[in-house]
């Protein structure tokens, strides 16, 4: 399906405005800049093909993020052959104090652990902690129930050995 010239312009304006946020979100999802770029490109081309539907959505940005997330979850083949690159954050610079060093180590360690999570669990954490979505919103994006979302989150946190006591509080708070 093609889109006409005004729709093309609208699409390009949307892309200019939202691309950074989509790429950042894709990085949190995939943990890999190259995968994130491929993922966003694929999804944006699909969005272009169906622009009339996307632009008619109440929140086109959220619509695209949903497409992005679902594409990521179904991206089995490419995901399996690409290596997720994780490592020490070189842009942060040398630690200013032992606490800061510990924090960087924690982040780096956590980033690596996140990369090892099943995709659904990682997606839930990215949507919850990076995109700041509520569990029902995450459920809409993933196409599952809020209970399933909480289940994914709980398992993810357990796998990260971060299943702290406040998880119970969070579940209640998000309902």
């Amino acid at each position, binding site marked *: 399906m093609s889109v006409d010239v005004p729709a093309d312009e609208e699409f390009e304006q949307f892309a200019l405005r939202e691309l950074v946020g989509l*790429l950042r979100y894709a990085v949190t999802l995939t943990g*890999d*800049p190259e995968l994130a770029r491929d993922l966003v490109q694929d999804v944006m081309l699909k969005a272009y093909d169906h622009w009339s539907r996307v632009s008619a959505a109440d929140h086109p940005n959220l619509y695209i993020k949903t497409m992005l997330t679902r594409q990521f979850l179904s991206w089995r083949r490419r995901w399996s052959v690409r290596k997720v690159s994780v490592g020490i*954050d070189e842009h*942060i610079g040398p630690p200013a104090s032992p606490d800061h060093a510990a924090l960087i180590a*924690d*982040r780096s360690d*956590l980033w690596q652990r996140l990369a090892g999570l099943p995709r659904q669990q990682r997606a839930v954490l990215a949507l919850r902690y990076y995109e700041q979505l509520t569990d029902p919103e995450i459920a809409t994006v993933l196409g599952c129930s809020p209970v399933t979302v909480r289940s994914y989150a709980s398992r993810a946190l357990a796998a990260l050995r*971060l299943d702290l006591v406040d998880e119970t509080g969070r579940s209640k708070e998000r309902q």
Partner: protein
Amino acid sequence: MNIDELLRDTFHSHEHLTPDPARVLGDIQQQIRGRRRHRRTRLLSTSGAVIAVAAIAATVSVFAGSTHHNSPSSPATSSVTAAATTSTDPAPTSPVTSASSIHSMRIPLSEYKIAITHTGDYTYTSPPLKLPHPITSDPNDIELSWGFVGGQATIAMTKGGGIRIVPANGDWSGPLVIQAQFRVDSFTGHPTLQFDSAGIGISGG
């Protein structure tokens, strides 16, 4: 630092891994341009084929028209007879197209198939029509935009995609000659006219 903060902080501290948006946008635009080029090429080749078919159809019908004029019997009557005998046949189609290449057509029978899938309004003017039988309308028919000169009838799109011409006078039972001019608001897609086996004489080009 609690779990929420640590996760948030971890995600945000890796934002620098984000690929260059300008480069990604450039790649997306390049792929879109490639798709447009591909689409345009495909459209041009399709249009070329349609024009060629239309030209052949116009040539054939002009030739057929001149043959009819040389025939001793009335051309309209011949068409009506042909239509009546073939109306139950399966409907082979003959694609024709663009309104500009067809300025008139002869409709020999009450019903034929028409599928105009090119966006726009089309006006076809027929020579006098001779309708041989009483024809009744169907509740499922959708009335088309129409106008007649010299007769009273309606043109309706049937549920199956055909065209039905229904004389306004219910008692009408003999040949009726009307000059038809009707407009069709067509649909998106390729310009195509499909006629049933009764055939439609097309003249003009």
